[in-house]
């Protein structure tokens, strides 16, 4: 991100320590991750040790320190989703995309994340892709949902 853009974010949030989380959120929402350069800029600009910023950024779950894929998948693991079988769905997505939760596919198409409750518990299990909710999901629906975002299913090996 350009320094002028960063400076604008700093000024919009009071240019003080109090606004630091809002600044990080703004950077995160624009770039989808927090780069070392951006954090270094904030560190110098606001005179906060870089390690403090890194500590904050790594503490809160909505920040990411590595670039994410084009599509961000959130699987809700709230209690209501858990008792209705969210884990098998997460595992199914992990198998399909061949990544673990928190990782990004090598082609940079998908990032898979978990979230601890989206507050739409009545419709569990829930999968959220790029802000769109998929309620009452099941293992069978996973491929279908992923295909809407450009996932190409492998051709199933012939079974005898």
């Amino acid at each position: 991100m350009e320094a002028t853009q960063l400076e604008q974010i700093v000024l919009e949030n009071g240019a003080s320590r109090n606004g630091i989380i809002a600044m990080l959120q703004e950077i995160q929402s624009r770039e989808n991750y927090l780069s070392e350069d951006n954090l270094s800029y904030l560190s110098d600009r606001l005179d906060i040790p870089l390690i403090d910023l890194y500590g904050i950024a790594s503490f809160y779950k909505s920040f990411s320190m590595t670039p994410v894929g084009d599509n961000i998948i959130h699987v809700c693991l709230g209690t209501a989703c858990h008792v209705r079988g969210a884990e098998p769905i997460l595992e199914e997505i992990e198998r399909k995309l061949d990544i673990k939760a928190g990782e990004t596919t090598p082609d940079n198409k998908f990032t898979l994340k978990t979230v601890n409750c989206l507050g739409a518990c009545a419709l569990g299990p829930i999968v959220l892709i790029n802000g769109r909710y998929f309620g009452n999901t099941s293992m069978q629906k996973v491929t279908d949902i992923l295909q809407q975002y450009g996932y190409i299913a492998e051709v199933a090996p012939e079974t005898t």
Partner: protein
Amino acid sequence: MAKLSIEDLKNLRDTMYRKMTNEENPKIIVHMGTCGIASGAQEIYDTIVRELTQEKINVTLKTSGCAGLCSREPMITIQLPGKAPVKYADLNPKKVIKILNQHIRNGVPVADYALAIGSETTY
């Protein structure tokens, strides 16, 4: 908007209350909380807009938050002037079109899709 005084607030309340309780047009409320949206309330809303813009029926279309019974979302409420509100549940665009035809245009609620009639009990 000018800042209100206590007097202004009371007047505004009375004006708005009259306006809301003496609605001349049929009123449709689409319940659009997060759970409603997650189960497709936006699609319902869009369908209604699309259907109604083709015709010359005056309808007050509104949104609201969650109606409470999330497992039966998406839901809408229709209130014809002078009648009790009717809540519809488990909707899809197809059902909505039928409801618009029957309830809004002809004034007869679609009993098959309706969840309940009337309002909730408040203290």
